[in-house]
């Protein structure tokens, strides 16, 4: 059987148009400077598709990259990046997903799966160690993600294979369709499911029977085991285990930072019914699940029986789902939201955008911008769960004019509907903002604005700026020299905080760690990540080198967008978040307006060595980062 050194990285290339399959090796220099995973995927994307590529055309590539340390006992290190040019934004898109698929791909012998071309008819990809097969999938087309998972496992006669599957939403190229991975984990944002759908690729199925070897086994194993114990003991981890991500809802309510009624309110009655505590107390929670090698187990498994909304036996929902499909749509009926989450999972929709597209439509309806005729029989006002559930289905199947319109996301839908509706389309760059109030958290505001895939917390998260724990304050002290900057409403040092977190986040994901472990809990940190990376490859590797690797990744992603024409004016937040102050609660009156954002951007670009007028990385910056050979065709700054 195949025993592979972690440092000997391999790419599996699959061209769906020709059926050609090939493998190639990754140079050690690239692995060390870009750390693998998300980092190398950014390089491949930059190199393999030219500027202007149609995200839904056959030329786009879809890159699956588990982390460099995925498949080992490093705690919470089993995550996978899926990278492509995104259809919602027309820019760089990376989504990160848990589950067990990434580790399985590593055991099969591959660190990267690069899928290009478009199959002439629906297919799925079957990677069974060395044997790679493109199999017909006409019989799976149109089916939900769960049934497809069952059918593939039955057909291959193996219920332990790992899958990544799109639902009808991805087939129909909904611009916020997702990929369901290992059945219960969602690679969500930016329409990554539509890219798979555009390739006629219904699913990826993987079986790996190989083994992974690290260069310094004993030190690696012992350090990883120690990190695992430290992480499990972290207070943040404990809360995530007990209550899941939605355990934060009572705290956010207290802070006046809930996102409700399409971001027009920061409170909603009965918000506790959306909380992780409520799921436990009321008996909806039936299980706590880990992703591969995780020592937190924040993932939920829930069951509910409802005559009104239908039964649920599914994973989730996460905090963001509770906010977007719940509070944002004016809903706190737990069973309705569980059902909405289940439908999104089965149809293959990103719950964050699905919720925000529907809450936008609800506001349009209440303001008379979408007429009852345009609503096609749906009473679309806030709080109508029945209309929401029906809309989820219509969007996934692009049914009717409204379903088809909303399937395009709020940027395009508001352009179509007209009036002032763009002002309450909570999007920037074409991506709906996740349910984080950037008016009262300034590092978050900057991080969201410069996020290459659009405004959300999943490319970098600056949770430490709240200074909730001693560990968080220590991180801020480390970055700024003084823990007084652990205050989310201060304007000073926000650029420093964002840049450090971006570097750390990118390195975290390149290695395969879950960002919760390094930027929400802090037991995984640049120092021990660097040490593990060194043990894995058999090299000396410092914290500074690791963070520099993260910086290279962030810069490369920036270069991709610059080549597509993105400029300073695209580093923007949704109109409402920059023009309507927080309406009530402890943060009443707060706003991150254009002047404030401009100040942040000036500081942030200067720190990076990016051109202040355009936001494009300067040539000297690329040379200093040893990236000049990668970003060869960058437009002049």
């Amino acid at each position, binding site marked *: 059987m195949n*025993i592979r050194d972690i440092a000997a990285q391999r790419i599996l290339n699959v061209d769906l148009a020709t059926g050609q399959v090939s493998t190639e090796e990754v140079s050690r220099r690239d692995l060390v400077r870009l750390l693998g995973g998300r980092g190398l995927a950014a390089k491949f994307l930059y190199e393999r598709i030219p500027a202007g590529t149609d995200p839904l055309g056959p030329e786009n590539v879809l890159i699956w990259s588990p982390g460099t340390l995925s498949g080992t006992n490093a705690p919470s290190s089993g995550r996978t990046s899926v990278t492509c040019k995104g259809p919602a934004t027309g820019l760089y898109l990376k989504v990160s997903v848990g589950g067990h698929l990434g580790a399985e791909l590593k055991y099969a012998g591959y660190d990267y799966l690069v899928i290009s071309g478009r199959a002439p008819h629906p297919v799925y990809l079957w990677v069974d160690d060395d044997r790679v097969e493109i199999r017909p999938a006409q019989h799976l087309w149109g089916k939900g993600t769960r049934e497809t998972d069952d059918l593939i496992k039955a057909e291959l006669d193996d219920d332990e294979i790992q899958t990544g599957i799109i639902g009808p939403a991805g087939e129909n190229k909904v611009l916020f369709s997702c990929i369901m991975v290992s059945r219960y984990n969602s690679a969500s944002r930016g329409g990554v499911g539509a890219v798979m759908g555009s390739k006629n690729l219904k699913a990826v199925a993987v079986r790996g*029977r190989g*083994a992974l070897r690290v260069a310094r086994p004993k030190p690696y194993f012992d350090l990883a*085991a120690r990190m695992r114990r430290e992480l499990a003991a972290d207070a943040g981890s404990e809360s995530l285990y007990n209550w899941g991500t939605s355990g934060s809802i009572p705290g956010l309510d207290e802070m006046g930072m809930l996102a409700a009624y399409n971001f027009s309110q920061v409170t909603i009655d009965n918000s506790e019914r959306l909380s992780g505590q409520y799921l436990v107390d009321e008996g909806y929670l039936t299980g706590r*699940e*880990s992703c591969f090698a*995780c020592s937190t187990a924040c993932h939920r498994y829930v069951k509910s029986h409802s005559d009104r909304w239908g039964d649920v036996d599914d994973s989730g929902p996460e905090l963001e789902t509770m906010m977007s499909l719940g509070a944002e749509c004016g809903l706190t009926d737990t069973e309705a939201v569980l059902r909405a989450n289940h439908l999104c999972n089965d149809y293959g929709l990103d719950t964050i955008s699905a919720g925000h597209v529907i809450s936008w439509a609800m506001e349009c309806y209440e303001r008379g911008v979408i007429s009852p005729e345009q609503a096609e029989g749906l009473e679309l006002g806030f709080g109508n769960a029945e209309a929401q559930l029906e809309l989820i289905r219509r969007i996934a199947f692009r049914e009717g004019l409204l379903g088809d319109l909303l399937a395009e996301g709020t940027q395009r839908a508001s352009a179509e509907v007209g009036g002032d509706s763009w002002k309450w389309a909570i999007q920037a760059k074409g991506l709906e903002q996740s349910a984080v109030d950037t008016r009262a958290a300034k590092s978050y505001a900057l991080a969201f604005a410069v996020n290459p895939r659009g405004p959300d917390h999943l490319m970098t998260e600056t949770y430490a700026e709240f200074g909730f724990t001693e560990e968080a304050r220590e991180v801020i002290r480390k970055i700024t020299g003084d823990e007084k900057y652990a205050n989310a409403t201060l304007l000073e040092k926000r650029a420093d905080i964002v840049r450090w977190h971006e570097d750390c986040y990118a390195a975290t994901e390149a290695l395969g760690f879950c960002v919760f472990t390094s930027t929400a809990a802090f037991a995984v940190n640049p120092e021990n990540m660097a040490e593990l990376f060194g043990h894995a490859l058999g090299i000396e590797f410092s914290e500074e080198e690791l963070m520099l690797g993260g910086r290279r990744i962030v810069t490369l992603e920036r270069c991709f967008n610059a080549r597509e024409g993105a400029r300073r004016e695209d580093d923007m937040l949704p109109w409402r978040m920059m023009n309507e102050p927080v309406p009530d609660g402890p943060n009443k009156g707060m706003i991150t307006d254009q002047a404030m954002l401009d100040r942040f951007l000036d500081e942030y670009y200067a720190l990076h060595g990016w051109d202040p007028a355009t936001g494009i990385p300067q040539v000297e910056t690329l040379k200093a980062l040893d990236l000049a050979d990668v970003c060869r065709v960058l437009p002049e700054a």
Partner: protein
Amino acid sequence: MTSLSVNADKCTACRACELTCSFVKEGVFAPYRSRIRIVRLHGFNVPVVCVNCAQAPCIEVCPTGAVYRDRAVPVVRINEAECIGCRECIKACPFGAADWDDDKDVAIMCDLCGGEPACVASCIYGALDFEPEATVVRRKRRATAEAIAARTAG
């Protein structure tokens, strides 16, 4: 007798036990070469591992005596040097707890690491215990009694 017991309701399927087992036994990370395996059902996960049967079918069917009872631990063990690869033990195991190692061409089964199972130490969720059977039984007996008492009092 001290034995490995499984609390499946606490298992989150992180699979640290599989990784630890394959590392300790083979020096690599490979769930396929782990003596303990996690079966993921929908929302429920079950660690499956050798239970050390008193009348062990694997010992009975082994033609060379490679599978034997090590009374010092005690545990059912396989002497890999004497394994001829007939796979009879794998077929005989009613639990799916004996498996085949493709790399070494021998059958593999849990040997409790000679009395200090590494998987138990790796499990942070409390899904694996290694305790004297008498302790486990006494604890369960007490829990049963307390449940009855609570019902009666309530």
